[in-house]
């Protein structure tokens, strides 16, 4: 008889923080106390609060233990489970009130979220189809098979769901177009090539609730008239591949995939295709080529995949988060879906809150939530008392939201107005120490690397832009560079073949729009206001702070620092390579960086 369950978060971040050894200790201690038959240990998908990992939750109480280590995990068994005493030392302390949180319901990071897409992540065992079914899993598939395909599509149209992959295209319309397209067979594809660096919601859904995607793809197959689905996952996510593969096997065993599903005479199956590290494959036409086993180069649209996709047949392609919404919309109806979010952007959005923010992790909030709520109320603000500068959204295709727009409701349309895009939901918080020119250069470097080379504006244009940005950061910026960047950027946007090229200049355009003064400082004053761009820095010794410990002179790789023991040291600027190792090693803050 099971009396307690220990839910151990096995999301990517918790595994990195030592989840495996925590789990092993828990299992060992349960055995030592002879209660291994009474207490079940379950590894779940990501619970979201990555910064607090590894996380262990004890049910039925729901006690939320954070930052558990192999050393103190035994306390959860010996104190909580054996003696019935909560382990206070492992509870989360709310920083302002200093109150101890007993359950996740007492932690502001969780209470402000609305979990729909992530409703099962961190709650169920991702390897157990029974647990998914117990949470109404596969109910939607059963219901859908009793509806007509047109009725299913109408529910989606009414729900107003928009594609969560970035562009926000109405999902219902896409399904309708694929259903109406001539040609057979038709295919259902899931885009799990989460390429935006800084986003990991798709990974978490695939790892934490894989059956929700299996179910949604089966519903899609029935609605558009397809018998074969393909799940395309990037190779960087081995655990997601493993768990999804397992889920497909279980679904077949239970009759949710295969022939004559639920006795409704509908056949559908899913195959996994693994990416191989090409960002451009997140673009739908490139992804389809990759599934065909070819080089992932995009093609001109139209024709859209709905008309001519995989092997030139009508193909429905949605991303993971979009699919994750489908079963619940079918089960609960369009009205329910519209009960949160805004009129034109109903439902929730999952954001990966990362960068310079206290509580990093995955958060799901209603569309239209403000950046302030995300960064400060949920994210707990900026660490180290630093000042918020901007949030970057949309990765290499996006731009920045500055402090002036902290109170703007975030949705697909509002972010577009200020020159960025929602993207897949990566939200990278930047503070005063981040240089916007450097960030824009970083993204551009990414695009240069990832450009597939098929069209000239993207292949050559982004490289030209990158070389200009590099010059600016190296202190060789010239008068007219900003204008040249703008001109080239507009040309690339207008003439590139696919979304990757068309959006590649966005990070530069967006940062020029809001931080032109920083560009000017780099170009005209040869200064990096945030002290990031290496070649624009000068390191020097502050004489009244230097105690003459010689640490810096010994560390300097080019012997640019001279000075005797207990005497003030001097940096020879002509030799200095600005590597910063003196700055890092000095324990007396005597090295000045400016």
């Amino acid at each position: 008889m099971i009396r307690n369950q220990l839910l151990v978060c096995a999301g990517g971040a918790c595994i990195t923080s030592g989840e495996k050894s925590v789990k092993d200790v828990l299992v060992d201690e349960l055995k030592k106390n002879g209660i291994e038959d009474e207490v079940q240990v379950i590894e779940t998908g990501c619970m979201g609060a990555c910064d607090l990992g590894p996380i262990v939750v004890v049910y039925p109480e729901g006690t939320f233990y954070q930052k558990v280590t192999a050393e103190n995990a035994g306390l959860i068994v010996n104190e909580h489970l054996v003696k019935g005493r909560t382990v206070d030392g492992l509870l989360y302390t709310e920083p302002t009130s200093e109150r101890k949180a007993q359950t996740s319901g007492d932690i502001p990071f969780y209470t402000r979220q609305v979990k729909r897409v992530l409703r099962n992540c961190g709650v169920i065992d991702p390897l157990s189809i029974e647990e998914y079914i117990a949470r109404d899993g596969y109910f939607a598939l059963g219901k859908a098979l009793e509806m007509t395909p047109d009725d299913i599509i109408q529910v989606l149209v009414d729900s107003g769901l928009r594609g969560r992959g970035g562009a926000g295209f109405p999902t219902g319309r896409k399904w309708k177009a694929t259903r109406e397209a001539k040609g057979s067979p038709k295919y259902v594809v899931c885009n799990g090539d989460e390429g935006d660096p800084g986003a990991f919601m798709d990974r978490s859904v695939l790892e934490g609730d894989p059956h929700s995607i299996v179910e949604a793809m089966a519903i899609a197959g029935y609605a558009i008239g397809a018998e074969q689905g393909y799940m395309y996952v990037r190779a960087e996510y081995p655990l997601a591949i493993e768990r999804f593969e397992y889920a497909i096997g279980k679904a077949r065993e239970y009759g949710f995939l295969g022939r004559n599903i639920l006795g409704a005479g509908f056949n559908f199956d899913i195959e996994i295709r693994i990416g191989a590290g090409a960002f451009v494959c997140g673009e739908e036409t490139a992804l389809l080529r990759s599934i065909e086993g070819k080089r992932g180069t995009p093609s001109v649209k139209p024709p859209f995949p709905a008309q001519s996709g995989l092997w030139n047949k009508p193909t429905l392609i949605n991303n993971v988060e979009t699919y994750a919404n489908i079963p619940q919309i079918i089960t609960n109806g369009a009205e329910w879906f519209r009960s949160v979010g805004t009129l034109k952007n109903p439902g929730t959005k999952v954001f990966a809150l990362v960068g310079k923010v206290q509580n990093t992790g995955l958060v799901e909030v209603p569309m239209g939530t403000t950046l302030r709520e995300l960064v400060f109320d949920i994210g707990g603000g900026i660490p180290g008392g630093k000042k918020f500068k901007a949030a970057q959204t949309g990765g290499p295709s996006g731009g920045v939201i500055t402090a002036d727009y902290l109170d703007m409701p975030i949705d697909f349309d509002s972010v577009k107005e200020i020159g960025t895009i929602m993207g897949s939901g990566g939200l990278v918080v930047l503070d005063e120490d981040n240089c916007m020119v450097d960030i824009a250069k970083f993204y551009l470097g990414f695009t240069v690397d990832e450009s597939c080379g098929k069209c000239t504006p993207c292949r050559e244009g982004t490289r030209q832009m990158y070389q200009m940005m590099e010059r600016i950061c190296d202190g060789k910026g010239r008068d007219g560079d900003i204008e040249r960047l703008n001109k080239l950027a507009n040309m690339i946007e207008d003439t590139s073949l696919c979304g990757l090229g068309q959006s590649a200049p966005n990070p530069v355009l967006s940062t020029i729009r809001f931080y032109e003064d920083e560009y000017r400082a780099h170009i005209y004053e040869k200064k990096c206001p945030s002290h990031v761009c290496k070649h624009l820095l000068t390191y020097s010794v502050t004489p009244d702070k230097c105690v003459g410990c010689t640490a810096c002179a010994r560390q300097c790789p080019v012997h640019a620092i001279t000075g005797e023991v207990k005497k003030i040291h001097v940096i020879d600027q002509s030799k200095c390579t600005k590597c910063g190792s003196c700055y890092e090693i000095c324990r007396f803050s005597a090295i000045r960086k400016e």
Partner: protein
Amino acid sequence: MKMNLEDRLKENPELKKQFDVLDAYIGELGTPEGSLINVLHRAQEIFGYLPDEVLEFVSSRLNVPRSTVYGVVTFYHFFSRVPKGRHTVTVCLGTACYVRGGNAVYEKVMRTLGIKAGETTRDGRFSLDLVRCVGACGLAPVVVIDKDTYGRSTPEKVAMLLNKYA
């Protein structure tokens, strides 16, 4: 003169075993159509990299032109045409890692190992790779060594870590 593959396999039972595993994998594929990338993944797992003879084998087994196989292998970052070191150090330079100092970590690893991304140390101990996001952004900056992921890394911590891998 280069020996043909069949003769070499007769002399080298180890190599033969590797080719047999790949052959069996291809044989089990339900639909060989479009399976080239999955097959190459498996081949790289078996051989560690993708030398000419493996590409030739895959080409004839799947009945895909060699030019196509070569084109696919060189298009995707994941596939390597050169042997890898015993350990692969992968530094993440996704955005979250970059803004939290991933670059300093990368520079430290480069200096410590004396190689750049895509290279292998002369003693064959380490290969160095860069990756754009492993999806552990909450713990940035992240370094992956073989299958172990290390979060909240610093240049010093990573330099120490490398010593653990012989």
